[in-house]
């Protein structure tokens, strides 16, 4: 089913304003009732280099930045050299007429829109930063978008800054100049959008982690800056005063998680986010939370590894690390949200699971999910999920001696908070008995050790029951089953639609709960599948390994990508066809 959509590519150097252009376009489209998905490819520097934003706009929901580049804004030679050849037939390139487009590089039927940027900048004192806005105005004409709405967005984006009147006026002027300039010379492309006027939000996964934290009653957030998780820190820091939460930047990630555990131990909902390297430093404390039965939420926004790896590129290669974090066995959950709204849901759910089972809950995101921006509807956000603090005793303990780590059938022991009369106890990282007294100092106490291990690990049974098993998306008897985790849901779903057009039926098993794992359910689905392929942004197929470890099922093949860039639907479609036609495995 074809639906009305267009993908606009905006290139530039870091710090030259192309980001604001993309934000404005996304905002305007969302206000008009269209859907957007924006992915920004960038490199690890503050100024210069190459920034490449692809913004896909659709009349219906779009879940990836797509396969096709329709319109390119090229305001420096580098952008044209890199991307002019990617514009598909029927598309166009808006560029500064003083730059060079090599005709031989172009695909057929690509329309060129040279803009007299120098002339158009004249009335604005030649502020080159405005050339982005000029091009944006041109895009609005070509795509039949409402210039008034753009002016409103510009007002909001720049309003309230120093000299804001001046900045708004020049940007609005530049947008109009660009719009007029293209309108005078070229026909619009004939996009017959139906503007519903339904106002949508434009959000990123990181922002939704922050919003979810506020909704869940998180009162303590600690962090050390690390791409691509830093936006969670920025967003929460900006909202800290208005929502009475403590946002603490720490000396390192070791301090981050230990501080969060300290706050959680005295009864505050506490969270932190980092990327793989920071999580490596946190791992000892993850086990501490398991041993002391402290509820805490940790987000790992994965980037290309190992080591410093690819700081600004996406990957899903931390599953082994998350699964193997810390020495020993301890109860915990690992959740992998599958889209931006799910980032919000997952944090709310993670806090409830953490407090109900008094254990660490880890959330696996990645750069793509955390940093891409996407339209979402306000109604998608359920703020009414109750805050479940689990077995938290707030009205005193009257029935005799309090045992913080009492042996219970569920493994969950009622928790009192420090400051409560008559229930003082020690929480220890050493093995301990029901009251918290260490048994590590005794010659040996195998009975108590086993009782305490069993008690803690019993919590996994309840956790599993609280987590709904994965559902197969698409027809059960499909030619191929695509298995993914976390952020790949959108691209797999779009690849399924594209495969259908080529006569291949596919379905999707997207794993959201990596721990606890729904072993029989996953095995049953996979055993009933005709051809099973994992789709993962890593080298070894970490999910495939996890599935094999948990179920004994070995997938038929792997579609892997570890070049730092996210999957586009065509990558998956091509590999599925190759594999099904027996060309490769």
């Amino acid at each position, binding site marked *: 089913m074809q639906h009305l959509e267009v993908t606009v590519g905006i290139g530039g150097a870091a710090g030259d304003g192309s980001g604001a252009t993309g934000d404005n376009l996304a905002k305007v489209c969302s206000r008009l009732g269209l859907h957007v998905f924006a992915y920004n490819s960038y490199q690890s520097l503050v100024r210069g280099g190459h920034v490449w934003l692809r913004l896909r706009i659709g009349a219906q929901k779009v879940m990836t930045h797509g396969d096709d580049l329709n319109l390119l804004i090229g305001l420096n030679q580098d952008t044209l050299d890199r991307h002019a050849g990617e514009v598909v037939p029927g598309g166009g390139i808006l560029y500064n007429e003083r730059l060079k487009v090599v005709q031989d590089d172009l695909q057929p039927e690509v329309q060129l829109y040279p803009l007299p940027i120098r002339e158009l900048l004249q009335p604005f004192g030649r502020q080159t930063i405005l050339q982005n806005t000029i091009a944006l105005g041109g895009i609005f004409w070509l795509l039949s978008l409402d210039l008034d709405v753009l002016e409103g967005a510009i007002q909001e984006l720049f309003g309230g800054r120093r000299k804001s009147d001046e900045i708004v006026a020049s940007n609005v002027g530049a947008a109009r100049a660009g719009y007029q300039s293209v309108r005078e010379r070229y026909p619009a492309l004939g996009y017959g959008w139906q503007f519903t006027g339904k106002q949508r939000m434009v959000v990123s996964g990181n922002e939704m982690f922050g919003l979810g934290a506020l909704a869940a009653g998180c*009162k303590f957030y600690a962090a050390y800056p690390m791409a691509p998780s830093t936006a969670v820190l920025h967003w929460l820091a900006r909202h800290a005063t208005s929502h009475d939460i403590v946002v603490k930047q720490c000396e390192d990630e070791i301090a981050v998680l230990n501080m969060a555990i300290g706050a959680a131990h005295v009864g505050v*909902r506490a969270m932190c986010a980092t990327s793989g390297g920071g999580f490596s430093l946190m791992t000892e404390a993850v086990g501490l939370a398991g041993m002391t039965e402290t509820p805490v939420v940790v987000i790992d926004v994965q980037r290309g590894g190992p080591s410093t790896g690819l700081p600004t590129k996406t990957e899903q290669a931390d599953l082994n690390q998350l699964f193997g974090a810390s020495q020993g066995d301890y109860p915990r959950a690992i959740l992998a949200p599958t889209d931006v709204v799910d980032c919000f849901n997952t944090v709310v759910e993670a806090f409830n699971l953490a407090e109900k089972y008094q254990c660490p809950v880890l959330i696996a995101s990645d750069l793509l999910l955390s940093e891409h921006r996407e339209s979402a509807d306000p109604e998608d956000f359920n703020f009414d999920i109750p805050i479940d603090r689990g077995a938290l005793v707030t009205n005193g303990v009257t029935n005799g001696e309090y045992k913080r780590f009492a042996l219970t059938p569920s493994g969950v022991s009622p928790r009192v908070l420090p400051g409560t009369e008559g229930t003082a106890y020690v929480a220890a990282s050493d093995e301990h008995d029901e009251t918290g007294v*260490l048994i590590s100092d005794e010659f040996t106490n195998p009975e108590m050790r086993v009782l305490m291990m069993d008690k803690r690990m019993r919590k996994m049974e309840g956790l599993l029951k609280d987590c709904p098993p994965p559902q197969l998306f698409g027809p059960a008897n499909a030619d191929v089953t695509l298995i993914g985790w976390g952020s790949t849901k959108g691209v797999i779903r779009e690849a399924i639609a594209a495969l259908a057009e080529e006569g291949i039926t596919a379905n999707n098993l997207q794993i959201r709960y990596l721990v606890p794992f729904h072993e029989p359910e996953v095995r049953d689905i996979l055993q009933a599948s005709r051809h099973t392929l994992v789709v993962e942004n890593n080298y070894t197929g970490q999910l495939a390994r996890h599935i094999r470890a948990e179920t004994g099922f070995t997938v038929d093949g792997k579609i892997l990508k570890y070049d730092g860039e996210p999957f586009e639907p065509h990558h998956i479609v091509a590999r599925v066809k190759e594999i099904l036609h027996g060309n490769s495995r």
Partner: protein
Amino acid sequence: MATVVELPLETYKGPVDPDWCPGCGDFGVLRTLQRAAGKLGIHPKDLMVVSGIGCSSNLPGYIHAYGFHGLHGRALAQATGMKLGNHDLHVVITGGDGDGYGIGIQHFIHSMRRNIDLTYVVMNNQIYGLTTGQASPTTERGEWTKSTPGGCPEDDLNPLAMALIAGATYVARGSSAEQEHLTNLIAQGIQHKGFALIDVFSPCVTYNKHNTHQWFKERVYKLEETDYDPTDYDRALLKVREWGDQIPIGLCYQVNRPTYEDGEPALKKGPLVHHKLGLTPEQRRTLLQEFM
């Protein structure tokens, strides 16, 4: 101000007795901490004793109070989270020189520069005890230990000088043999608003045959018995470097500066742990609108 009702020592008697070696300096530190809490009338429910790992870090298990016996070197980070989570608690950290000045030194330095209201009691025995006798950051150069059979090849770290440079607002040194004196130093440290370091000579009778009870007894003198002025920062920097035949103990430096908590807006509405959770309908609308 309410009058302080002192509490007897038994109030803080822990569920089990210490298993430190007979003669260990840590016994004296445990007793003085209990006395200091009693002197200030701090109810066990309001006392949070946090430690890392090591012989001295077993202390929270031996005192009746809330306790957290966490990871090696991380007690200050955990304690900071606890204080920010519930600033009504008196948070005292107890540990050793390896725990605090070795593996955990980054938290030591940053906690002091933050001036968060914590009381840090370090049982400094200049050796790793629980791991059976290796050089610690405060082992003196040339000292024989199991890990330095040719003599310790590094200079020792001066925790008090480091505390002064890092911005601690209460810097003291005590001796576990000087019970009355140490009780006062700890009590004042707990009362002090801001980060208080009390470094305590707490000899290891098993693995440190050099810095013994007798060795300290021959050398320490109390600053309070001299004309020393603990408000003079420059003088303190000189004084804390005195080492050898004469070693000063007592309050080396104290100054009043705003605490970290004072600058944290969210805490103005009372301890975080007592805040109401979740968003009002108005807050939800405003937040969603931000993204439109």
